[in-house]
């Protein structure tokens, strides 16, 4: 018997699916997460993470770094990959779909829980000139990418996702931006692929550039951290240049990490304001679905500000990050399961062109600034 929602409604929780409805999908996500990552509380050693780790050891390190780390194997990528393979090879039963829709709860929840991860004081050691410089480069990259994306005639959700991820340098940001920008799964994964591909190519070519420009270790570390961003690929580039540069890359990575929310919030607010300014423009789709500023973003911003005052100590932060891993593992599994490969390829190659164009502009600007700072003895690093 099909009872209308209004009659069933007892509280705001009534809008949720029943446990019975979500259980199959939730279990699918759960098991994919369980066999993808070494998650806190799970003793399962048969995980994709462990398989990759073993393969890393068999293949041997590249520039002293594990290969699958360079290829961005992590707690988001692994379950997504497994979900993608399962979903596209075996298909997804309808009974799973309601459970998979929990991604819309898990993503915002994960973003909020990420707030303690971005603590500004961790970056202070690098000095204010470098922090300001990094912030400027981040905003510059975002703006260039947004402008170029528009010029290339791409879907604004797609290019703004690339802008957020490229400017912050972290491919995870595509997942963070997904509920913010209301991007499609295919766009998100396409953007992720573009960022990873760019990072991979750049991480092997950047040391050549660094040596050609006769950069010192510290400057090259800054170039790799803010020119590539993605942690594994940054370290690949930096350690490919020298051990010392690798160590400094670890040091400066905290700056990029601390500034990351500013980067994706910048992209979100640009697109959010644009959607408000052009409500009738059919080409403006990013954030359109938000009638008002989403609550989870408000909560995230408040949490982000609060944690700057050290209300959450390091052991608690680590514990919360373990929960984030659980959360994003489940969400990424759902994303992988619900994403046909065709949706990823549908976005075409324009994303790659955009990423490489913006990325190269950023590297050129960064290198020029670093060389100029060295030339004029400006204490940037």
């Amino acid at each position: 018997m099909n009872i209308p929602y209004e009659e069933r409604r007892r509280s705001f929780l009534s809008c949720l699916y029943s446990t019975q409805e979500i259980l199959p999908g939730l279990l699918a996500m759960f098991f994919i997460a369980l066999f993808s990552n070494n998650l806190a509380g799970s003793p399962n050693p048969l995980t994709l993470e462990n398989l990759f780790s073993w393969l890393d050891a068999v293949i041997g390190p590249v520039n002293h770094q594990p290969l699958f780390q360079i290829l961005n194997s992590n707690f988001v990528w692994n379950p997504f990959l497994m979900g993608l393979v399962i979903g596209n090879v075996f298909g997804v039963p309808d009974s799973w779909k309601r459970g998979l829709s929990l991604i819309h709860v898990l993503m915002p929840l994960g973003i909020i829980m990420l707030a303690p991860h971005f603590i500004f004081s961790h970056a202070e050691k690098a000095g204010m000139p470098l922090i300001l410089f990094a912030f400027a480069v981040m905003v510059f990259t975002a703006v260039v990418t947004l402008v170029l994306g528009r010029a290339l005639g791409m879907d604004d959700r797609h290019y703004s996702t690339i802008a957020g991820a490229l400017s912050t340098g972290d491919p995870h940001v595509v997942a963070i931006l997904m509920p913010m920008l209301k991007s499609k799964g295919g766009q998100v994964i396409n953007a992720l692929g573009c960022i990873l591909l760019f990072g991979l190519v750049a991480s092997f070519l950047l040391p050549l550039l660094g040596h050609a420009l006769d950069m010192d270790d510290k400057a090259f570390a800054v170039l790799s951290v803010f020119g590539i961003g993605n942690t594994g690929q940054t370290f690949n580039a930096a350690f490919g240049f020298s051990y010392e540069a690798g160590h400094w890359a670890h040091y400066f990575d905290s700056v990029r990490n601390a500034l990351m929310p500013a980067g994706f919030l910048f992209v979100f607010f640009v697109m959010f304001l644009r959607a408000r300014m052009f409500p009738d423009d059919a080409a403006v789709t990013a954030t359109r679905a938000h009638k008002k500023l989403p609550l989870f973003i408000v909560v995230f911003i408040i949490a982000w500000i609060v944690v700057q005052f050290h209300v959450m100590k390091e052991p608690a932060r680590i514990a919360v990050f373990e929960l984030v891993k659980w959360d994003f593992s489940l969400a990424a599994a759902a994303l992988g399961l619900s994403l046909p490969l065709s949706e990823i390829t549908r976005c075409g190659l324009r994303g790659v062109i955009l990423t490489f164009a913006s990325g190269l502009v950023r590297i050129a600007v960064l290198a020029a600034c670093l060389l100029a700072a060295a030339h004029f003895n400006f204490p940037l690093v």
Partner: protein
Amino acid sequence: MNKLLASGAAAALLCLLFSGAPAAESPHGLAPAGDMPFIPDLGGLRHKAFKNQYGQQRELSEAVLVRKSSVKNGKATVPAGGLCYISETQEDAAPFRRDPFLLLGEHAYLVDSKTSVRSVRDVSLKKGEKVLVDNAGYRLWFDYATDHYDLPYIQMALIAPSGHWPMEFSVSSKFPAIKDLPDRSHMEGDVEQLDEFFLDPVFEYGASRFEVKDHDFQKATFSSLSYPVIDEATFSLSRPVVLDLRQEEYRLYGTKRIYAFRESSGFRVSVTNLGGDKILAEKLLRPISSQGYKDAENEKDAYSLTVPGEDMRVEIAVQPEWLRHSDFMPWSDAVPHDWSDGMLSLVVYRDLVTVKNGEPWPLDPRYTVGLEASLLTGKLQRLTLENAEPFTLDDKNDSYDGPVKYSDVWNRPAFRLVADDIEGDKVKSYYVRDAFFQRTDNLSFTDRGRRDIDCFIGRAPTFVSILEDSFLTRLATPKFGTEVEGSHFTSFPSVMPNMAFHSPDPTAPFGGLMRGFGREQVTNRRGERLTSSEGLVIRGSYVDWKNNRIVIPPAGLFYTSRNARNVRALNGETFYMLGRRAYIATFESTTFTRRNFDIDFWRVQPDASLHPIYWQDQPLGVNNKVLRFTEKHLLDDRPMAQINVVKYSGNNFGAPFELAQGLSREQGDRYYLHDRFAEGATWIEPEFVGEDYVRVKSFGTPAIKSVEYTYEKPVRALLAPGEEKALGKNHTLRLVSFDEAAGTATVEIRRNDGSLAKTRTLGPLNAKTRAFLPQHQRVVNSLQFAFDEGKNKVLAEMDVKTPFEKGKAAFYTYTDLKKLEGDTPFEGDPRFMVRPDVCGHCYQLNEVLLDNPEPIILDREHPRFDGPRMADGKPQFSIVIDSFDGEMIHAWHIETNYRKRVFKSANLAFQPRNNVGVLMGVNGTIEGFLRASLMERSAWQEYWRTGAHPHSERGLDAWLAHKFQ
């Protein structure tokens, strides 16, 4: 002449050619290259703790060692024995305890071993040498020689073929032996310096005995060396089958029956075929219990039945009811006594493998088995597999397989050594791949390549022994910058009330040499060259995040100055004092004695901090030293205690006291240890040595009260009677008379106005008094004339080397003397307390410490703390906090003032830290801390090199960890 030289050289060359190349030295007992790569983790080489039948924890580890290799002309050569697999237990493994042991990655149990004692006679060697003493590859190492009363005593070590040695031992044939120690149980409190200096010519160490016949400073001859060796060991590669024993009945084991018939002294165990009509083996077995003597060669046969031709060994074990069918126990400390309520079980070991020392490995004759015993207990501690023949790696043949391992799935090489890029005399790429196909990073860490393929992969404790010669250089001159290990952050501040007698955080960064902390070779009047150095240690500091501050607790910061050995008066010896060279003038020491007190065994009480609680310590006076009962063993059920004197700095006195009572070789005991201990002027005589505590009847050790020094170089004055010499600004030294035959000189000190201040006769300096030089303060004082009128303290001393010359008497004069008195504020900077430390053997100054009596607080408003001020008023060093967010320290450094310049260390919180612990400079104190944490620090060096996080259980390790739990 040139022709002569040329013909000589040609002849030598011909001889060399016709005689063949000189035989390469055996790598046994020798260290690999000092700069060899160390990789702590490779999945196939395991490092894990298991428990034996009695619940005693056994730390097991495996390693691959390559040593004495060379690269030349595109070829890498490894001599026979140069490639060595090591499986090691930190404790030991013996039959009847189901002791676990790793065999090429497989979890096995030692079920039997044949042991014997090897005696070697008349071994001679020179200082610095490591001579082979037997064909197995044991070496005797003459490390060091020093003196007391100018008589030598020597420090030695017996090195196993693998390179492991448990401890250095001191012996001497020149001093009274331990048995000559008189009864001193009447002594209590501070007593004056004692004349006797003890050192035994025999070092007794459980199953080992080393007796020196004669020696001097440069060479030594040992009349005998006795040490345990293991001739054969049998391992079981599977967990045993445990069956309830039913007397007069049989239990089925596969296709066999095992009967047990009760007899008065045990069970007659009979193994028959399935029908029970054919007896395969039969024997009267006594049940095994935990008494240690049962594994003795003449005892053990009564406790096991091996079935000929069958892969089967039967024992009867007494096991607690809840223990049956499991070899894992719920408790983790030792089980000293047998339990009273147990069940009798038949324990059947299978998959037996017997290996013999010096024989080929059963699965791979290319490798030779080595079985090494613990020198203390004589039980198995190490299994090595070494390449029997030398091998070469080159372009055509770039790998060499390790020994073939036993496996449930596929017997295959346990590892493979690969050198796949050799250019000329350099190897650019080489690595080790394990049985699971996992490999290390390229062990030639840089593009420059290496001239050898030496390496150490794995965490076997032999690593620490094998690096004794080079570890300080490895740690002090890191190739990859100042290494900083990130802290583990806790949910509570790790508060330390006082850090005296505690060692620093093992993760504290080591800054190595830094300008501003002196280190140089100095030469005394006797021409002896000694290293003098100073440093800084911060220990026990913590972030008090509840109050947004960093706290260095009392005694948490200390300045240390120390020489390579004690600093002696009358020799013009110098030491560093806050960046300046200071000349020691005189000292005041006593003997601290205690009697009738108990020392409890120290157990680590984990409190989640890196600083254990030492509540069982017994203090030796105030801020002097403490006694700590750190280790214990049962030697055939007789308790053996190891007690350490711990210095104020947190370092141990070099010689631990190994004590056990009631052991006698004459009565047939396998072990012997002295029941009392005396080395130098320190002694301990126990009333009772127990497993959990030791009651001490009498104990004594030197303590130093004060030293006097000057920054002005002492001046030699040669005076004839009536002659005088200026002694500082206000006085003159005048020789009144001297008697060369008696060795005396009468001198007087006069004021500048000519008035007599003081007269004194110095000496006598004759054979009798020389026998107590340079250590005995009574004799030292008799040769020194100190004078103090409150303005400028001065001192004159007889030149003990050449007291009389050309009809004159020789003196050294000291002016502007300063005093360092223990437990008083430092004269130059009263914020710091003086803690002089004494040599435990003699009564000389060993170390000068200056530490903070009050906590030091650093926060955002007070980010800088200046260390003790030097003579010019500037602090020798400063602690500067650059970035601190209330919880984490993100950047801080040390600054030093040196020759009017300021030097800064690297950021000592390159990775976030929750303390400002640091070791800066290099001297004996810092070296002690480094040695104690060498394995962890070296492992961290490797993580730091590649920017990796410390090894976690990932990949195959996670799988193995669970599989073998």
